């Protein structure tokens, strides 16, 4: 007789089956096999109860680990345990120039100031959003009674941030209460929060507390706060304990929390900003003057983002924990830059200078794939902010170097054998299906740092499109875009781009993998068309050599016999290259190369692979064999 009930199967049928096995070993009851019997009903209750408890135990266990938790509240709590505060919504930021023209006004003051919180309206997709200045700005007379406002650093491009100002006021209780101050608003932007502590409810002077995340040293008198998402999605504010985690407000103190309630990513791409109210100032004879502010948009709003997703928390929290808020290893740079600028970044790659193309010891290289739509000046500004972050957190004397991501485009000339008798679909339909399958492969397999192209994986997907596809093969090419222009970031963070069309210039194009060696049949290097000496030309290597020529497309003869060369390592050098124009409404020339190994292309460092569907082709060859 079975003396125990097996407890490994946790689904209802297994549990009930185990109970039946147990009863079968006894002759006390025999009707357990009949669904309508009383015994079966009793077994249902027992099995259902056990199944239900097993599920609860399973869920509870899953929710206890960062790797398996499914509820946002669980991940927020678990990440809090390792010192990680998930990102809140972040407000979009735009850059504007502000000025007032006071010509005709008398008794002008020498300086005008706009306090932080001056509101501007903008409309995106029919919805009105509010933006506001985030720091006081001031202006002096330029001599023509026009006042241009500048930040405290003297910069004319002024940040305005999306969001509606909100204030919450609390009175601190006795220290023994260990108060947590609840802010019932899930749209709070953590980066906008300002915490002021007043001595009493009627005091006018206050102490501004600092986020514990920005603290480099903590003493018992540090004025620090912790503001973090609560499991219910709202936010909770707490302070130190008066000893190890800094000063705590004492009973009777008034705590004022000022923050922006953000619309997140909905606030991106606003371009026209209108002041909500007129600018008002007092002139030298104490009269109040109201006048319209002139607003010029420098950068459209960008950087607004939603709360950090649960998958992002799952990925970032352990890395943050291991980096301990210090930039020591290359991965520390990735995780800390992501923590602070994740709303602008698609993907990031960092590596030590010893692994750079030209080794540079004592440097860390960062390559960032920014989200689409960011303007050059915004990117320059973010890079400056990352450098400041690195100055604070990196090892002394380590230098930070930015490498812009280089996109290497992959195209495929794919052909497959197709037997129409094995499928009801036509050749054209199957060709379209193959094209879609290849597009899906590229969209999931490449596009981020470190993601490789593998031809065999692609072809195996093509073979599975239909039973009528008998075999497939593909020739692979890669190209990079040569843009004849120079971009410079100026000291005031503005960006200048100068076209070099028609000007002789040296260029280096570097592919992430080796290029096929020269032979006497196929060209390893070609290019898209450009105009040179009033002729439509392309770049092409001379057969059997590494020399690159400019070829007249109409005569197929060289216009320039030697404009540069290529190396097997992937480097192409062009010397004194001066294309005059580029047809097709684009600003780049495609420099196309045949990789030495067409079966696999693995990008390194700052390289990212992309799919080029315009250069790809798909052909089905009808066969009758099986």
């Amino acid at each position, binding site marked *: 007789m079975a003396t125990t009930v097996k407890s490994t199967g946790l689904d*209802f*049928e297994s549990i009930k089956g185990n109970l039946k096995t147990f009863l079968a070993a006894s*002759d*006390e*009851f*025999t*009707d357990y096999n*009949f*669904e*309508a*019997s*009383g*015994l079966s*009903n*009793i077994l*249902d209750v027992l*099995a*259902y109860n056990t199944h239900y408890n097993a599920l609860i135990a399973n869920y509870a266990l899953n929710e206890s680990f960062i790797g398996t938790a499914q509820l946002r509240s669980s991940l927020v709590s678990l990440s809090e345990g390792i010192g990680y505060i998930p990102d809140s919504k972040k407000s979009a930021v735009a850059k504007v120039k502000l000025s007032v023209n006071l010509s005709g006004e008398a008794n002008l003051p020498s300086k005008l100031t706009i306090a932080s919180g001056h509101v501007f309206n903008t409309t995106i997709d029919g919805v009105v959003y509010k933006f506001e200045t985030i720091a006081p700005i001031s202006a002096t007379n330029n001599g023509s009674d026009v006042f241009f406002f500048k930040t405290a650093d003297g910069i004319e491009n002024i940040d305005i941030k999306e969001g509606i100002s909100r204030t919450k006021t609390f009175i601190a209780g006795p220290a023994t209460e260990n108060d947590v101050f609840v802010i019932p608003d899930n749209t709070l932007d953590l980066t906008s929060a300002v915490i002021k502590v007043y001595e009493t409810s009627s005091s006018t002077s206050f102490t501004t507390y600092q986020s514990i995340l920005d603290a480099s040293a903590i003493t018992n008198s540090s004025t620090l706060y912790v503001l973090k998402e609560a499991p219910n999605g709202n936010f909770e504010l707490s302070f130190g304990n008066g000893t190890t985690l800094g000063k705590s407000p004492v009973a009777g103190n008034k705590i004022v929390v000022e923050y922006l309630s953000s619309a997140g990513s909905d606030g991106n791409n606003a371009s026209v900003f209108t002041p909500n109210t007129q600018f008002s100032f007092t002139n030298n004879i104490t009269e109040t003057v109201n006048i319209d502010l002139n607003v010029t948009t420098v950068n459209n709003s960008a950087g607004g983002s939603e709360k950090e997703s649960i998958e992002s928390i799952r990925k970032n929290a352990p890395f943050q924990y291991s980096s301990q808020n210090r930039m020591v290893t290359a991965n520390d740079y990735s995780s800390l830059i992501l923590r602070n600028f994740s709303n602008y970044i698609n993907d990031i790659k960092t590596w030590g200078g010893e692994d750079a193309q030209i080794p540079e010891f004592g440097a860390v290289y960062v390559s960032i794939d920014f989200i689409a739509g960011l303007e050059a000046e915004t990117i320059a500004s973010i890079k400056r902010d990352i450098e400041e972050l690195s100055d604070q957190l990196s090892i002394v004397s380590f230098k930070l170097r930015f490498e812009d991501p280089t996109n290497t485009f992959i195209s495929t000339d794919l052909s497959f054998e197709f037997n129409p008798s094995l499928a009801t679909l036509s050749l054209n339909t199957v060709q379209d299906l193959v094209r879609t399958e290849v597009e899906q492969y590229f969209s999931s397999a490449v596009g981020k740092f470190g993601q490789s192209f593998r031809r065999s994986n692609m072809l195996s997907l093509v073979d599975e499109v239909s039973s009528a596809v008998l075999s497939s093969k593909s020739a692979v090419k890669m190209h990079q875009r040569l843009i004849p222009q120079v971009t410079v970031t100026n000291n005031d963070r503005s960006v200048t781009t100068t076209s070099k069309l028609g000007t002789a210039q040296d260029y280096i194009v570097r592919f992430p993998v080796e290029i096929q060696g020269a032979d006497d049949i196929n060209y390893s290097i070609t290019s898209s068309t450009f105009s040179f000496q009033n002729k439509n030309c392309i770049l092409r290597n001379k057969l059997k050599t590494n020399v690159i020529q400019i070829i007249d497309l109409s005569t197929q003869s060289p216009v320039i016999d030697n404009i540069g060369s290529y190396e097997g390592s992937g480097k192409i050098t062009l010397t004194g290259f001066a294309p005059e124009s580029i047809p097709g409404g684009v600003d780049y020339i495609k420099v196309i190369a045949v990789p030495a190994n067409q079966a696999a292309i693995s990008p390194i460092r700052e390289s990212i692979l992309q799919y080029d569907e315009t250069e790809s082709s798909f052909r089905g060859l009808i066969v009758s064999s099986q």
Partner: protein
Amino acid sequence: MATKIFSQEDGNLDAASIVVTRDLIYKDIDLNFNKRTTGDIFKKTEAAAVRQAIKTLISTNRFEKPFKPDFGADIRSMLFELADEKSGGEIISRIKNTVQQYEPRAGVRKITVEVSEIYNAIDVKIVFQILNTDQIITYETTVSRLV
């Protein structure tokens, strides 16, 4: 003549009295859960066990039994349907199908249904045979709306 030797455990089998019992095929818990003097609960055996199963089937609604959504004759739901000449046939069909599917020990001989529109009640009489004993059992029940 050889002498029969029995083990100490068995003793002298020739002297032991022979008891013959009839094996009970069907043994089920009595769902009334009445207590016997020994403290145990009563059992239902043989025809009584099958009759109890038929009763359970008829009084169970769909989706009542975990992981078996189509278990039961679902008669109570008919109390709230429009009572017309087709109602009786529908109920008979439901009972017949569910007994065939879930109670292989019983063969339905006859089902009589009376739908009482005045009292919002359904009278059901089911005559069935215990298949391996040829016993004929009649089970009658009435389901009605609460008033």
